């Protein structure tokens, strides 16, 4: 989040505080690339955003499969359900902007073809963070790190969007991700 905002020397402490406390949790270095470019139309952006939300949804369902306790399982299912609501909102925005009527199935098919190139699999992502899935606070930390990535992505994209309508959509989704992050933070405080 910082590296896109003028911070030139940002370093992730591998393994976070766990490494500092001498426990094992060191993941490989992350290097990513930006998926969006500033010239994308609002419709194109919405397709990419939708694929990200699909990815988050699948990720949380994968995590639910791996959960060892009932509480963690339910938490992941709840998070997965929220991502579906984000997808609904993105589809609604797309449908409002589209010249011709488009069904959810048609939209899904359009998005499917543009997603999933290169990079890290869910298992590799897990290896990176190495969470203890039986501990709810670790699960929520992981979810927060993912939501922060999504928020960061939307903010970076929003700042680069030249079209005001596109920027407004991106900022709206970014605000929702921020609220989501805040809710996870509050949930963390209750545990």
């Amino acid at each position, binding site marked *: 989040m910082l590296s896109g905002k003028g911070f030139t020397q940002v370093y992730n402490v591998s393994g976070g505080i766990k490494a500092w406390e001498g426990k094992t949790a060191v993941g490989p270095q992350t290097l990513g690339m930006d998926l969006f470019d500033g010239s994308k139309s609002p419709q194109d952006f919405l397709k990419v955003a939708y694929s990200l939300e*699909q*990815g988050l949804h699948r990720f949380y369902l994968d995590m639910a499969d791996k959960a060892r306790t009932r509480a963690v399982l339910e938490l992941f299912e709840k998070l997965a359900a929220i991502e579906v609501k984000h997808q609904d909102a993105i589809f609604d925005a797309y449908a409002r902007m589209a010249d011709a009527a488009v069904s959810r199935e048609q939209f899904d098919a359009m998005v499917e073809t543009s997603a999933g190139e290169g990079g890290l699999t869910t298992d590799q992502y897990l290896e990176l963070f190495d969470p203890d899935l039986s501990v709810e606070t670790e699960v929520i930390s992981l979810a927060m790190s993912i939501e922060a990535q999504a928020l960061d992505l939307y903010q970076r994209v929003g700042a680069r969007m030249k079209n005001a309508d596109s920027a407004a959509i991106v900022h709206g989704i970014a605000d929702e991700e921020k609220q989501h992050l805040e809710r996870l933070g509050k949930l963390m405080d209750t545990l």
Partner: protein
Amino acid sequence: MKWMQFLTPVQSKDYNETRKMISDHSPEDITILDVRQPSEYQASHIPGAVLIPLPQLSDRMSELDPGKPTLVY
């Protein structure tokens, strides 16, 4: 689903590199940023770390100096 494309490029420092960075800089020349929740910070944190919980980070970036090396956890 592939994730790499969604990640922000950022370098990682392991425990020893982090310790070295902190000892090589005087405290006012480096930012150690803890983005966890306040209760986690209270339980334990790297000495000298500033707390800005992740949900607040995007609104509170102006409190940090972008010119300083920043270690985040």
